[in-house]
């Protein structure tokens, strides 16, 4: 290829990428514009939020809006509930789903295919079909407005079992055989050899569970309506009902509720994206 051709090729490439930058940059700005707007409004006065034309920067930064969130809603206890229900569900699902997923992928027992098929059939059923009976179970156990009540159904996951089974199916047999010859029992093989190998699958499961647990609204709305028992999603929905026009406080509360997951997931972005990508595996 001649020099000029190479140069022309480079020019074309640069031209192309310029278009890519314009489109991706413009679109990206649109994507985060609402959040930038939220941040600015969360440090403005209510009068500034409601002014026309909009003020784009507050005349004086109102940091106290974030402190005020604690007086209009029980933010501390909602945060505690959100953290606890998320942690419990992640731990529960990681243990239970990997145990079951491993058994379905690697062990032989009567009825394996049939039991798995029944569990997988749940994946096609929309969540509303479980909601009324689940509510009754929690009510009968006296667990309304408790962490146990919010967490209980979410400790188990048909999706998680399927995800972990797919992972264990993809691991090589040899290590397992060697351990068996050395006299390890199935639980030792599972916990010492297979679990470490399934780290990617466990990450994917944990990430999906964190996202879903932290953000879910409908189930906790039904189960935990009191201020002290409500996780952040319900707390925000209630706050919006009670202080619909106190915009700076709403923006600050919403920002504080999202921040932990946003910071955590942006920091681990590669893992999170890989996990979400994997969860969509066939």
């Amino acid at each position, binding site marked *: 290829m001649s020099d000029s051709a190479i140069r022309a090729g480079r020019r074309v490439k640069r031209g192309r990428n310029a278009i890519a930058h314009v489109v991706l940059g413009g679109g*990206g700005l649109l994507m985060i514009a609402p959040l930038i707007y939220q941040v600015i409004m969360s440090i403005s006065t209510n009068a500034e939020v409601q002014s026309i*034309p909009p003020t784009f920067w507050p005349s004086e930064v109102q940091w106290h809006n974030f402190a005020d969130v604690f007086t209009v809603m029980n933010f501390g206890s909602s945060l505690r509930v959100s953290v606890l229900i998320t942690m419990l569900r992640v731990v529960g699902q990681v243990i239970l789903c990997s145990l079951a997923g491993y058994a379905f992928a690697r062990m032989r027992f009567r009825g394996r295919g049939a039991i798995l098929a029944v569990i997988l059939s749940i*994946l096609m059923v929309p969540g509303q079909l479980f909601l009324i009976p689940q509510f009754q179970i929690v009510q009968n156990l006296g667990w309304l407005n408790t962490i146990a009540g919010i967490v209980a159904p979410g400790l188990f996951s*048909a999706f998680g079992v399927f995800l972990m089974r797919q992972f264990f199916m993809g691991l090589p047999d040899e290590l397992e*055989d060697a351990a068996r010859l050395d006299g390890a029992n199935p639980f030792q093989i599972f916990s010492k050899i297979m679990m470490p190998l399934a780290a990617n699958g466990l990450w994917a499961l944990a990430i999906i569970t964190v996202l879903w647990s932290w953000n879910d609204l409908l189930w906790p709305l039904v189960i935990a309506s009191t201020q002290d028992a409500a996780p952040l999603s319900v707390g925000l929905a209630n706050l919006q009902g009670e202080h619909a026009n106190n*915009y700076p406080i709403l923006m600050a*509360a919403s920002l504080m509720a999202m921040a932990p997951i946003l910071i955590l997931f942006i920091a681990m972005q590669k893992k999170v994206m890989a996990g979400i990508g994997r969860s969509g595996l*066939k």
Partner: protein
Amino acid sequence: MSNPTTELRAAPEAGPEEKPAPLRRRLVARGDGAWPWLFILPTVFGITVFYLWPIIQTFYYSFTKWGVFGGAKFIGLDNYVRLFSDSSIPQSLLNTIIYTLIVLMGIPIAVVLSALMESPGLKFAGFYRTLYFIPYITMPAAVGIVWRLVFNGDFGPINWFLSLLGIEGPYWTSTPGFALAAVATVGLWMSLGFNLIIIGAGLREIPQEIYEAAEMDGASRLRQFFSITVPLLTPSIFFVSVVTVISGFQLFDLLYVMMGKANLAMPQTQSLVYIFYNHAFLENDKGYAAAVGILILLIIAALTAVQFRVQRKWVNYV
């Protein structure tokens, strides 16, 4: 979704049987005794109590009427008859369909953005990925509050922007029609990050040689996009469209937070799941709510089946 079950029957047998190693066969034939049952017991228990039995119960409830003081009375098919005479059902079905169609528009957008993002040697690609990914991980209840302000009729930035163009913006979240468009816009905004992850992964699997060959044949970049990228992406596109339709029919959080229970435009905007929630937990009409739930199940099952049937016509599996 039919894949896992078919593959599940074939795969476990295929592995051990094909290998000639007698040692392995002996190990497998021995079986694992009671161990597997210990492994699956907690899950089988939890899934039965919290998922399988509830499905049966909900099915039964859909034939009952609930009294004010609890207790359910069997009323046969009355709830299903009522579904047909309840005018809010077709309205909410239409709303759900419109919402889903708007969110589906995120898929072609994601294909174009993804193709640009994967341009060879593009700088800041990681940064762009982060920007588009952020809305996907936000809490619907939290961003719903933000978007309600963004769409505010009096001082929201969208109407201010429209006023610059000489357009008088509507009261988005309290006007039927506009309210649904506003909620769906947010749905699209949130789902784009997920679509990009799945489609981006699909794109990276397309062998670079195909593009190089096309380049040598003098195919333009636009031509490459339509003749290589899009056809080879159809499995990913199919997957995200199935997910989008299923989650579109689950619309609740955004609607609830952006509009609020007391919103007068709610009857013209509500989704099927909102109707379910309303009857089950606000009006304590759980029998009818159960029938609405069964209806949602049937619609999602039918739509998914149709999508799997139609996929043969347009999805290319290599």
